[in-house]
């Protein structure tokens, strides 16, 4: 297993009141994303556990793009990966932040 951690400072706190959300399933080509509102205002941490090694740069780029796009300030995001493609990872991250923004 490879574990990766990315720390970002988002543009702002993610809106919404939900404390926690989970989306996706650990299955082949899929992943689960757990989002928790536990960090200060603009901080964002993404922890990844993946059985595939050697994709550090891809993960880094996908996470950076997500942070830029949705500004998930205040979130700790934990990922259990089942070998998902980058587009699936991005989709789940966006779904997850949308769940956290729901009233």
């Amino acid at each position, binding site marked *: 297993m490879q574990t990766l951690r990315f720390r970002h400072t988002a543009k702002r706190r993610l809106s919404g009141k939900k404390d*926690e959300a*989970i989306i996706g*399933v*650990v299955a082949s080509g899929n992943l*689960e994303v757990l989002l928790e509102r536990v960090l200060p205002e603009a901080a964002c941490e993404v922890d990844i*556990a*993946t059985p595939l090694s050697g994709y550090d740069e891809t993960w880094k780029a996908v996470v950076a793009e997500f942070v830029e796009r949705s500004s998930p300030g205040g979130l700790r995001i934990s990922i*259990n990966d089942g070998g998902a493609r980058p587009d699936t990872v991005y989709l789940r991250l966006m779904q997850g932040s949308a769940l956290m923004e729901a009233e």
Partner: protein
Amino acid sequence: MEDVTTSGRASWFQATARQRVEGLLDPNSFTEFLGPSERVQSPHLHLFDLPSAFDDGVVIGRGKLDGKDVLVAAQEGQFMGGTFAEVSGAKLVGLVRAARDHRNLPQTVLLLMDSGGVRLQEANAGELAVAELMRAIVQARCAGVAVIALVGGRAGAFGGAGLTTATCSRVGVSEQGRIAVSGPEVIETNKGVEEFNAEDKALVWSTDGGKNRRLLGGADAFAEDSMEGFRAAAKALMAKVPAFDLKTMQAEQERLAARQKRFGACDDAVSMWRILGIKEPEAIRDMDSKEFTELANSIKECNHDAR
């Protein structure tokens, strides 16, 4: 905004465990126990370089169905085949034991089965979990708890999940739901392709599938493959749970003995359906759920007080 993945028409078969719980219970009534943020995960999978799941593939908690309090557990068939393992098994066992021991908890347990059996990487713990769960179900039923299995997921209910299902007070199944102990591939590997051809999907579904289970009395309700369908089936089953006493046990023994006598010589499902007096048994496969439910409700063998 309505979530299409948990709305009444959404497919049960396609849904995840969490979506099923959401779609089955009354809106916003579910409270999870040991939720994903508590990270009660498998202590073994990382040793095999395999990813864990935050809930180890089982969602447990309490909620309401049609206003009635229920405990609920859902297996995630997409994660490791929904398998029984140390943590996922302990969550199921703990939930059923809690119902058994605490009268102030809901006295109905809904088990949303979706599992191929024991997780091979934690096989000893998984086998123990199955045995403990079956024992807990029997003890809970003795204490007056209704334990209801609902089967309609992608992994079906095989191995320990098939045994667990058969231990419950009542069973609901959809056409896509399969209930058995040895899976088709296992039978083919051990007994040869002449015994059971696992590639022949029509044969597999007509044998293990929900329609056959319902017609032979192995399931007490047939659900359409939707959240609404399983809600309706669960409600109907909750309304008629048999007492778990000597009379029920004797009735079950008699039912199974009569079934073996009647169908023991059959070598496929269609010939069993013919013996049941169904005029066009070949037409069963193409029947929609409404038509099939009416047929099943009209056959004596399908509607018994045993279990």
